[in-house]
């Protein structure tokens, strides 16, 4: 057996937001800090024993975090592109700097980048009317964010869930643009059924591929048909079901992964962001994931 994989997360973490505090502060002309929500998420990940944590993406659904700060975009009922998209200011860097201040020394951080194609597919394009051009312009914006982010993180993960729904023939080029100035490790996360796009994924300019093997166990067989030269982030607990998988169930799943990928498993994680499930369950899922990993790898 090769090196012990790290436990990590894909992105979001469920935190209850005190909406009334926003209103009280509004009436009292006070600013509301978001840091306590980031801290809640980070503390849970650290206390669960996760090796590489995120900022929890507590502010918004993950694509909105980006659209809120990219010049040329606005958010109404949905995110809208209304002008040329440009990088204006750092998007997640301040939150990550804060995370760095509050975590134990041994804990590492994954910086999260919403993929350009997923952003393109998640907005109403009122300006470009050209999906490819918009995707490439967004990739340029994200490259700048990733470059700034890498100074503060140990790993950058590009999240492209839309690739499992439709993947353009320029998908690799987009990821290349986003990641080309990075010297840290790079991960590509694509959830959903990726069975039909495995060859494209294996060509991606990243070190680690991350997929939801728990919700899509058929992927184990699908990957057997290919020679995998990338590291694997193995999705081990479901992010769409409240039920908490027990340690034995997770261990069985990891062993299945070892059977297919041998020593390529580099990370153990939930299938995707945990935003949709109750906090208590999310915490238990992470804790069990850590314990299962320890029992297998020591």
């Amino acid at each position, binding site marked *: 057996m090769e090196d012990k994989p790290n436990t990590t997360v894909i992105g979001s973490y469920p935190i209850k937001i005190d909406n009334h*505090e926003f209103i009280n502060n509004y009436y009292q002309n006070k600013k509301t800090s978001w840091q306590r929500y980031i801290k809640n998420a980070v503390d849970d990940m650290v206390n669960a024993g996760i090796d590489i944590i995120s900022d929890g993406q507590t502010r918004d659904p993950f694509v909105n975090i980006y659209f*809120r700060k990219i010049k040329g975009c606005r958010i109404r009922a949905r995110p809208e592109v209304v002008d040329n998209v440009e990088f204006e200011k750092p998007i997640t860097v301040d939150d990550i700097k804060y995370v760095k201040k509050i975590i134990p020394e041994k804990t590492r951080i994954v910086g999260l980048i919403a993929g350009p194609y997923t952003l393109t597919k998640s907005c109403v394009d009122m300006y470009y009317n050209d999906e490819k051009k918009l995707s490439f312009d967004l990739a340029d914006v994200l490259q700048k964010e990733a470059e700034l982010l890498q100074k503060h993180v140990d790993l950058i993960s590009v999240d492209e869930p839309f690739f499992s729904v439709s993947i353009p023939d320029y998908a690799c080029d987009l990821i290349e643009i986003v990641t080309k100035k990075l010297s840290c490790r790079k991960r590509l996360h694509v959830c959903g059924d990726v069975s039909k796009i495995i060859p494209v994924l294996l060509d991606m300019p990243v070190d680690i591929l991350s997929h939801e093997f728990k919700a899509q166990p058929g992927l184990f067989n699908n990957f057997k048909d290919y020679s995998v030269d990338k590291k694997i982030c193995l999705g081990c607990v479901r992010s769409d079901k409240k039920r908490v998988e027990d340690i034995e169930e997770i261990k069985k799943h990891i062993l299945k992964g070892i059977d297919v990928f041998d020593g390529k498993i580099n990370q153990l994680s939930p299938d995707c962001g945990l935003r949709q499930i109750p906090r208590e369950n999310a915490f238990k899922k992470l804790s069990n994931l850590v314990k299962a990993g320890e029992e297998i790898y020591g």
Partner: protein
Amino acid sequence: MFSFTKKQKTYEIRNIKIGGQPGENPTLLFGGFFFKGEPDFKTAEKDLENMIYLSKKTGNPSIPDFFIKKEEFIEEIIIFIKKNLPSGYLFSVDIIEPELKIKTLESLKKEKLLDRTVFNSIHVGITSEEKKCLKENTPAMAILVAFNPKDKSPDGKIEVLENSAHLQKAGLIDITKEIGIKNILIDTAAMAPGDYSGSSISAIPVIKEEYGLPTGCAIHNVVEKSKWLDDFKHAKKIVDAASNMDIPLFGGDFAIFGPVQNADFVFPIIAWQDILVSEYTENYFGTKPSKDHPRRKFF
């Protein structure tokens, strides 16, 4: 001055007619009864009489806005309303704490006053208990405060109306409709100077064009928070009253103009502005002022 391409909703309820195209209906004015400390009902009675007089004289409809801070004041304020406010008049209750909102709504139902009540307000802080109570004790009208803690621009205000910026399960408009409140006013949420204060005014035409719903704000709050104006004490009250002119000028329908004591300034200022807007919009767009419009009163 302008006209909206979106069809504009007009509500006719009790003593007021609100909404529509710029120049169509006079600006509705909410005068605040704040009661610092113990309510002083003697002064309140005079202020209420004066506001009703000014309303009749100018043609600008008015609604007294009762700020309720403590549970023990609920009953006294309701007694005051029943005794002093003509039965054809609406009134609003302006309450921050959810528990107090619930108790007030229950009392208003007991006193059969809900069909005259404007609920001030529904916002992203609404609790599930409050929603349940509003379903059981539904007021005639509600003010939706489009405050978005994530984005204070006009777009952010639309976002919060559409989906509560994901801080609630639905947007403020859908929440209000689901409760069963039929008459909706949109308050564009005035911000402090230096914190996107202009967006409460610029959001008025944006929201009216998007939804066609009666829209306004409490722009006087921006003046109140402009501490630099304390160096111009003689002017601050005038600026406070005059700030409300921005609302009809930008196509808005109502102003929550702050302390009712400012009514003597605010009513003539707004009537003047309404006349100005009406003259232009009738000449250019053919928008006829309604029968009680200040332009009909004074010309």
